[in-house]
């Protein structure tokens, strides 16, 4: 059981929880004065989390190159699209 706890998966869980708390603080005005910058930063952190879920929890890190490329491409495009649309409203 110990071998299952001391894994990269557990490390990723800690990172995801940490990133969530960073997003939470950014969403409550900590760190960045501008709401636009904070919102964009929250979305960026969100897609870093998404990337960890896709590569490590869904195990696409070891998937065929084409599959990983599609996944990474979607993450970058979706992140850019959402940050762009968010900033348009400011």
């Amino acid at each position, binding site marked *: *059981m110990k*071998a*299952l*706890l001391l*894994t990269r*998966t*557990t490390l*990723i*869980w800690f990172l*995801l*929880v940490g990133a*969530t708390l960073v*997003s*939470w603080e*950014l*969403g*409550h*005005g900590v760190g960045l004065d501008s*709401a636009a910058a*904070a*919102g964009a930063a*929250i*979305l960026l*952190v*969100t*897609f870093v*989390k*998404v990337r960890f*879920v*896709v590569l*490590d*929890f*869904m*195990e*696409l890190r070891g*998937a*065929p190159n084409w*599959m990983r490329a*599609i996944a990474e491409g*979607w993450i970058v495009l*979706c992140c850019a*699209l*959402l940050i762009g*649309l*968010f900033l*348009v*409203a400011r």
Partner: protein
Amino acid sequence: MPGEEGVWLFIGGDLILFTLLFAVFLHMRAEQLTVFTEGRAQLNQTWGLINTLLMLTSSWCVATAIQAARRHQVQVTMRCFGGALACGLGFWTVKCFEYSEKLSAGLTITTNDFFMLYFTYTGIHLIHVTIGMGVLTALIFYARSGNFDAAKLRNLESGASFWHLVDLLWIVLFALLYLVGAP
């Protein structure tokens, strides 16, 4: 490739659909910034945070269950899937509190466009959670007999990938609905 190709086709299709939903949300937000900023302020962010932590933990449980299955640890596999199921139940419970809080405050799907999207998107996600809980329950029974050969592991991975999708979608929904756009 972890799991079956068909599951990945479904996951890809679902992600395309949700990408459109996320874009629609931000497009409508740009057109009604005040309504969306006020709507966001009326959400209980603590519920959102608790549910995010539950989703992340459930995903850890599922990923660990798969690793345990590869080591042929039947009991640990079942317990980890059970842990993920419990997190899913916790998510549902929090959502019930959250929805009832909103409805008691007179906030419904017809209140404005923000709450229309809030109830629709979280509702569609909750359907995913419910299906995922059904999948997790099936995986617990499926894992009970052990014999984790390649075919069985692939089936377990397919179910696990679906649950991770549910987690992934919530991660983005939490940011969009609850966090971004604070004045």
